[in-house]
């Protein structure tokens, strides 16, 4: 008797893939920088050293020093925190407000829904950054105002997505069953509707985190974020702009920091999105 084997077609999915791993490492580094800047930065962020102003990368200053002799690397390290605070804070506020508004719109009847959705329509008509700019311009610069401005700018998108999701879940059979068990409606919303609607919003939020950081840096670049001399990537970029022809490093390294942070977060978010969509175990 001959025994024939059809070997299983091998699946090329071995080990950890480089992309996501790199993104995760980048995010971890960002969190680390924001949490312990003092342990990682060789200098204080505002230590002025006029003797070594505008010195090139290498030697005493890994990434060079700026026009006042402040260490660029240390300032980037210390700049991680405000960037992250604006990004995370704005996303958190945006997601929370968006969730509440989306749930309200989906569950409180056609009139409330119509009013809320028309408002989001109007807000969505503006590019988020422009909207944030408008709000900060009205409320004045500063880290808190910048955070809130970015949050308001991202709320409509989250509200929209949550509403769409909740409209579907509200009609799901298991919600009907819960109603059939005489479970009070607020509890049905808390136990079934909200948890089953919020997934896509959370995934989007990881991508939005990167965008919020970028928006925060943009506001700072325009002088609407944290006030100088406190280090912030956008502010550093803006300062370095004037010295670009003599000392490129002052602007380029903070720019790279923003780019790397946003890329890492976006990549991570996309990866998460794919996994949730493909029904990976939660």
């Amino acid at each position: 008797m001959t025994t024939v084997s059809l070997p299983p077609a091998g699946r090329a999915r071995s080990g950890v893939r480089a992309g996501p791993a790199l993104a995760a490492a980048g995010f971890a580094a960002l969190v680390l920088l924001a949490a312990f800047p003092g342990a990682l930065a060789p200098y204080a962020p505002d230590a002025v050293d006029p003797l070594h102003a505008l010195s090139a990368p290498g030697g005493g200053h890994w990434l060079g020093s700026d026009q006042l002799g402040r260490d660029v690397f240390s300032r980037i390290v210390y700049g991680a925190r405000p960037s992250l605070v604006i990004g995370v804070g704005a996303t958190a506020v945006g997601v929370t407000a968006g969730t509440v508004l989306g749930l309200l719109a989906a569950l409180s009847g056609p009139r409330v829904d119509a009013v809320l959705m028309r408002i989001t329509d109007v807000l969505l008509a503006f590019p988020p950054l422009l909207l944030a700019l408008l709000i900060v311009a009205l409320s004045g610069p500063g880290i808190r105002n910048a955070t809130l401005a970015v949050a308001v700018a991202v709320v409509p998108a989250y509200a929209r997505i949550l509403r769409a999701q909740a409209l579907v879940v509200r009609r799901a059979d298991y919600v009907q069953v819960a109603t059939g068990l005489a479970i009070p409606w607020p509890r049905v919303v808390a136990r079934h509707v909200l948890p089953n609607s919020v997934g896509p919003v959370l995934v989007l939020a990881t991508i939005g985190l990167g965008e919020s950081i970028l928006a925060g840096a943009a506001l700072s670049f325009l002088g609407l974020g944290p006030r100088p001399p406190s280090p912030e990537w956008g502010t550093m970029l803006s300062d370095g702009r004037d010295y670009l022809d003599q000392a490129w490093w002052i602007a380029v390294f903070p720019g790279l920091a923003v780019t790397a942070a946003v890329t890492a977060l976006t990549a991570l978010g996309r990866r998460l999105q794919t996994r949730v969509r493909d029904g990976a175990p939660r």
Partner: protein
Amino acid sequence: MTGPAMTDPAMTGPAPLLDVDELHVDFDLAGRRVAAVRGVSLTLRAGQCLGVVGESGSGKSVTARALLGLAGDTATVRAGRLRLGDRDLSGLSGNEWRDVRGREIGLVLQDALASLDPLRRVGAQIAGPLRAHGRLSRQDVDARVRELLGVVGLTDPTIARRYPHQLSGGQRQRALIASAIACRPALLIADEPTTALDATVQARILDLLAEIKAAGTALLLISHDLGVVARLADDVAVMHQGRVVETGPTGRLLTDPQHAHTRELIAAVPSARPKVAPPSPLTPPTPPTPPTPPMSPSPPKPLPTPVTSSGTSSGAEATSPIPDRQPLLTADGITKSFATRRGPHPAVRDVSFHLQAGEVLGLVGESGSGKSTLARIVLAAAEPDAGQVTLDGRPWSGVPERRRRDLRRTIQGVHQDPLSSFDPRFTVEQIIGEALTGPTGHRARDARREQITALLDGVGLAPDLLARRPLELSGGQRQRVAIARALAPGPRVLICDEPVSALDVTIQAQILDLLAGLRRDRGLAILFISHDLDVVRHISDRVAVMRDGRIVETGETESVFADPRHDYTRALLDAVPRSALLSATPAP
């Protein structure tokens, strides 16, 4: 190889077309090796039909897939012999398999809607295998598609230009069969080809398969339904846990089953079970039920009590409800329409019925007859456009939710699709726990778990399922969890929408017994909706036949089954493959 070898058919007559010996299929599941098929041997000659019967998980579908080289990436297929005609199927490469599929072996699956590409016209899909294998010119392909549509009984010339969703379930299955036989394969594998279809449509599809067989194609028919297999198969192989436990000519296997599992399968077919003695010609000339024309909008007349209980069995005592007792649930003149692009479509029209404690009313009808809409209305998940539902003497439809709340738990439903009725994030324990009353605190946890375990036990599930989530359950387990949940609040009325149609016959029998027991012991009233006449007949005291949103006939179960008054009821009854099983003769 366990079980008797399939030698006798092979020894007489010419060499078999399909010759499988010692087929093993193992799956590699996350490093764990699971043997799905363990040494299956089958032979099949041209123009013959071999039925493979077994419960879900018995390995019958995996066997079929292995014959097509479709067992999947994680499977390892080993076989002593795997031959089709004079071709050796073992060790074919991907390209060689593609050559075999469609041209030498055709495949028909249960779910035609899922098998057909929703974005391509039916004609193009039937032409697909012709283009892939044949050397036919474009005109010849078109002609062959028309011919094939004719062969499968789709004579409407516009069908080729339609999309799958524009066809009915039966038409889709026909189209799928047309594409499977397009290249005149020597072997057609049909995996549960009629399971998703209504009884009348099912009968016609089986006739079509019989014609294809008569034209000389070998047919490998896979089904959990002995009735279907008995109607078509010359030989039957019974599979259990990856092995063929018994094979033989259909007639002998049904009349004289050797293996315990075969007997179990036969015994579990509702029509073969005790309550239903073969339809007795001695049934009284049915004066009791006045010929029931489409329901009038008048209040429901209490049905006349059966004159005698002659000819009926155990169910009869429970059947005769005390005539003057108030019905637990009444529906009066229920009408419901849905808005469609072509105007309102009436789903339920002027339907009335009533249900007393301890009574089972079977509601029969094909898909689209309005059964499920009616169920939703009775469960107060939808409001009727007109008419009134009363529960326990109180208005149930058309009142604010607040006034329904204290009655909600007295009426529970078992959904047709249990998976969608579970919160996907919940575990079985949470799902059933939610339906329980009583204290929910931390201290009550053990008591609750005990209750849940008892409910699971009642539907034949082990407590190790408690931590599973719905997606980790099999179809049968989901259905049983749904039933356990429906029973958790201690309802007095149960609305079951196709509660057992997804289950294997042995589990089906178990659930039916459970429901019958609850009806007897607790006086549970059940509205039992199903397209499966055997099941309805087995459990119901009365039946109502629904068509196009109306109840066309109602009456005592036995009198309706023995002497159907309405043409449609007769058509339904004629379509059931049951007769083949009862008389235990193989189809010609």
